[in-house]
Every structure is written in C-alpha cells, then in structure tokens.
C-alpha cells in the first residue's frame, strides 16, 4: 500500500512539474528559437503582424491616459515661447518622417526601435507605482498604467524575436548591438526621467509609442511586403 501511494504521488509531482514548465508563455504558443522541438514556428510575416498589433494597442492606451491627465490637470497652454519640455529619449536619433524612415538602414531602424523600448522600461514601472499610491486616480487609470508597463516589456521581447529571426534569415546583419547588451543603450546624458512630471512623461510616451508603431510598419513593408502594406 504505501508503495502504490508513493508511486502515485510521484506521478502527480511529475505531471505538475511538466505543466508548470509548459506554462512559461501565457496565451499564444511559444515561438521557437534555434530549433526547439514541439513549438510553433511562426513566419516573419506573422511575427511582424503580431508586434505591429501590439504596438498599436500600446499607443492607444497611452493616448487614453494622456487625455485623462489633460482633463484632470489642465496644464497651462499660455506659455509664450518654447516650452522646455524635454523627453528623456530625445537623445535617441529617430527619423522624423516617412522618407527618413525609409532611407534608414534596416539594422539602424531595428536598433532605434529597441532603444526606445528599452529606455521606457524603468520610467513606466515607476509611473505605475506612483499611480498606485496616488488616490486621485481611479482604478481604471491605474490598470491602464500597469497594462502599459507590461506591454512595453512584451513588445520589446517581440521585437527582439523579430530581429533574431531576421538575422537568422540573413535579412539584416548581426550588427544589432541591443540584442547583446541592452544596458549600453540606456541614455546616459539625458535628463533624468525622475524629474519629469507625470503629465510630461505621458506626453513623451505617447509620442514614442507612435514612433515605434510607424517604424515597425515601415520595416515590415520593406522586408515582407504584402497586401497589408
């Protein structure tokens, strides 16, 4: 009797371990890297579509939050002259139009995207923390801040996968440095984002998320053009 009990419990433990190990990625099937067995192989086209959808959603949330803040805080628009708003990502050189983005090399463009995403990881996390502690904001806004934070994280992982796949396929060279050491990309001489007020932070993030979305679309239509372009 005790022998059978032990064997049964062992089987259960093994099953639980297997299930928990399988649940690493929530939702969609895991994307294969370097020939994993049993995972779902996605084409580059599919990967691009996924990250583009993700970035569109992220931009939508940031727009909503920004307009909510505008209602609450009504920042003064009566300043004459230039307002000294500087986003902490302003040191990153980004193409400011369609032609510039199309002219930029693929590797460069991919790197710009990744730099932007990495630069926003910490500020959004702290923004979410400050939102949670502030009692002025309702749960709706707080949830959006958390969602925004998660999405930046996921989007960055997605773009990294896309970059890897492109490197594997030989579409881009292996010179994308962000994949090797992301900390290099953190802007060192920019204004400290901790000094930014919440409203400015949202304004800057709204802009940057729009950039990411547009750059990804340009990249996709250059590399895998199809009817979606």
């Amino acid at each position, binding site marked *: 009797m005790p022998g059978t009990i032990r064997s049964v419990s062992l089987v259960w433990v093994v099953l639980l371990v297997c299930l928990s190990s399988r649940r690493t990625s929530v939702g969609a099937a895991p994307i294969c890297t370097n020939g994993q067995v049993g995972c779902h192989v996605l084409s580059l086209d599919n990967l691009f579509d996924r990250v583009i959808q993700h970035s*569109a959603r992220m*931009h*939508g949330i940031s*727009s909503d939050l920004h307009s909510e803040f505008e209602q609450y805080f009504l920042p003064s*628009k*009566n*300043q*004459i*002259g*230039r*307002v000294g*708003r500087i986003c902490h990502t*302003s040191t990153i050189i*980004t193409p*400011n*139009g*369609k*032609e510039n*983005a*199309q002219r930029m090399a693929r590797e460069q463009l991919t790197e710009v995207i990744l730099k932007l995403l990495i630069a926003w990881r910490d500020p959004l996390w702290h923004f979410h923390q400050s939102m949670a502690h502030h009692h002025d904001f309702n749960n709706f806004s707080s949830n959006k801040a958390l969602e925004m934070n998660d999405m930046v994280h996921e989007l960055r992982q997605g773009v990294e996968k896309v970059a890897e796949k492109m490197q594997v396929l030989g579409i881009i060279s292996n010179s994308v440095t962000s994949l090797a050491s992301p900390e290099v990309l953190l802007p060192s001489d920019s204004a400290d984002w901790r000094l930014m007020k919440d409203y400015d932070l949202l304004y800057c993030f709204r*802009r940057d998320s*729009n*950039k990411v*979305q*547009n750059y990804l*679309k*340009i990249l*996709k*239509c250059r590399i895998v053009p199809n009817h*979606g*372009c």
Partner: protein
Amino acid sequence: MRRDLRGALLLLLTAAVQSSSMSAPGKPVLLSCRSPEKETFTCWWEPGSDGGLPTTHHLYYERERLEGTYECPDYLSAGRNSCFFDKNHTSIWVDYYLTVMASNALGNATSDPFKMDVMEIVKPDAPGNVTLRVEEREASPCLHVRWMPPSNTDTKSGWVTIKYELRVKKDNSNNWKEYTSGTQTHFSLYSVSPGGVYTVQVRCLLDHGSWSEWSNTTFVKISNYLQNERPLSMLISILSAILFIMAGLILIAKRKSVKQWVLPPVPGPKIRGINSQLLQSGGSDDVGNVLIIKQSFPPIYFVWEDQMEDYLIVTENEDWLSSNSQKRKKSLIPACFHFDSEIHSKESPCHQNDWEKDEEISQVDNNNKPFTNTGYVDFQRNVENVDVKHVDYSRVKEVKSDNIIFLEKEKVQSSGYIHFQRQEGIPEDYSRVKEVESDHLVVLQKQNAADLSCKDEGNHYTDCALHKPRKPHVCTELSDSGYVDTIPAPPLM
C-alpha cells in the same frame, strides 16, 4: 472768432473721425491645422479687423529641436489665410509653435501661440469615386459599393493604415445605417429591398487620427421586379397551412379511434363461465365440488354453455321459472359458476347460500308438487375432471303392454351428452324401469299416481315426476340411469 473756433472744432472732429477708422490691425486667431497624410500639413487663421488699412499676415513658427524662428514656406497653395508646410518642412513627432502676425501701416497684432504636433492633426481627405452596382438576384437584390482611397494618401508603404466606414439611407429618411469596412475598398449590402432609392456615403481614418468628411452622395434606384412571384408562393403556403390545421383537428376529434387503430387492445385469456376472481377467492374444495357431477340423476348439472344450443337448469319452483318462460336458462347452480351466456343477460351471483337454498327448495317441492316442467342441465363430456357417464341410446322397437318395452339390438351411441329437445306443451313423463330382461327387453313399473310418492331418495326430481299419470302410447327412450324418458310419438296401435 467764433466762426473760426467752430471751423477748427469741425476740422478736429473730422480729423478724429477719419483717424479712428485707420488703426492697427486686430489680433488674428489661428484656427486649426490639418495633415491629410501625415507627411504635410496646413494651418488656417482668422484675421482680425484690418484697421481700415491694407493688412498683411505672416505666420511664424518655432520648432522643437530646431533653433530660430521661421516663416511659413507657402502661403498660397492652401488658399487665403493659410500656410502650407510641404514635406521638407514637416517633421513628425516634434512640437510646432505657430504665431500669426497681422501688420498694417499703423501697427502689428500677434495671435496667441498655437502648439501642435503633426501626429495629432492627421485627418485624411474623403474617399473618392464611390460607385454603386445593383445585383439582381432571385430572393433579394444586393448592392455592391466600391470606392477609391483619397488620392494623396500613401497606403502602400505601411506608413499609415487606412480604415473605412460607410453609411446608407433609404429614400428620404434621416436614418443612416453605418457599416465598417476595415481596409477594403468595397462593400456589399444585402439588406436592400426593391423599389427604393438608396444613398451611400463613405469616409476614412488614418491610424489614430480623425475621421474624414463624408464623401459625395451617390444613390441608386432598385427596380421593382419581384412582385409577381410573391403572391403565388404565399398562396401555396397558406393552403398547406390550412390543410395541416384541418388534418390536426380531425386527428384530435377522432383520437380515440386513432388510438385504437394504432394500439389495439390485447385480448386476455378467458374461459367462459369461470369467474377468475371467484375462483381465486373460493377454496379449492368448492371448485372441485362444482366440477363433480352427481351420480344420481340430478336435478342439477353444471353448465358449460358455450356448446349448448339449448339447455336448462332445473328449478322446482314454478314462480322462479315462470319469470323466464321460454328460456329457462337461469342458473340454479351453484357455487362458483355463473353464466356468461349470450342469451342470458343477467348474471346471477353464486353463493354458497344459494346452493343450500336450492336444495331446500327442491326437497320441499319434491314432496308436494308435481313437476310441471322438466328439464335438466347438460354437461359437457369433454371436461376431464368430470366424472362423465357415457350415455348410450337404445331405440325402442316395440312396446308390448304398458310396461314392457322391446329394444333394438344395436345400441345407438350418443354423441356424448344427453340431448333434450323440448317441445312445447308436451308433458314429459318418466317411468321407472322395473326390470331389464335381456339386452333388448325393458319392463317398466306400473304406477298409479297415488301409489307413488315422491320419496326423498336424494333424487328429488325424478320421483315426483312419476306422479304424472302415465299416458299410453308413448315412446320411451332408454337411458342408463334407469329412467325412461318419454317422447310423444304416434300411437303404436
């Protein structure tokens, strides 16, 4: 002096009046800016009062991450009081600070600064070339709508993602119905009915920007071609519905017979003359008693009537019998049998008491009354339990005197039961057999009416029968039981 003063005042006044119409211009107001494709943009302003003098307006802008103040590159392309920024001068995701200055000979006026980012002011042109095509199908027509994206929008490079929306209204109503088309430049409407004028408009959206204006209205009339076929199909459907309802009503009305036809009752086993309930309730002795036939010529036999054409059961009581004159089929008997005859509608209950009662009655009657009518109860030979006596008949050959009978040699087999044919008004007599000489000679006992008394030998019936005066010239039949039955016959001599 006074005149001069007045003249001077007048001059001053006119000068003052004249000089108030000319002044510095009023403050202009920047209305809005718009980018139709996220590559260029245009801004419009509203000038203030011009102060009576020719006034010019200039737009100046400053840009984030760009040093200096710049003037509008193009005042003409977009019309009056506008400034058009071409691709070279447009930067997305940077803030522009615009101001408009109105100036005339007397002064300047500057508007409030207007801050904008191209990302926020995207609003495309309306889609063009909206065409409608009616497809006439059998069941219902359908409307195919096609359009082109706005000409200045670049949808191929993925820079912007365009989405469409269309709205339809019928005839002159104000109810528009809206549909989303996604990124397709065509749409099919299936909820159109013939005989109406449909008006369609389309608009579009870029990424997260604003919706464009609605396109020019396009309308089409759908002809009325389907009217003929409708009434026929409606008529057919109505008729079939009526038929169904009628069939249903008939079924409901005749549900009993339908039920019998569908599920006929299963006949159960039944033996006529035997009441199964009584059999169950009564003891086995009674059943046995009932089935046994008494040895002596019995007034009472047990009846299985299903094979009898004519049978009687005897009763001594006249009044009892008189109630059924012709057909005395009433059952006297006994204990657990009851009639289930066709002729006899009434079921007489069988009780133990009846049996005894009948015995009583018959005993009494035997002593006193002669039998006017006689009969006997037949029983069926085929029943196993019954101790059946075989009855043979012998034919009477000759009657010598009034007490000697000669019989024929051969015996006539009876069919198995004592058959009794009744004829109306013929009294029946029995004579007792005194002696059987040989197998063909029977000596009858002479009797007087006074001599013979109805002895109670346990056979009630027959003794009393001898009271009857014996009539000559009667033929008799010989029976085993010792009694000769009488049958009227032509006199022998």
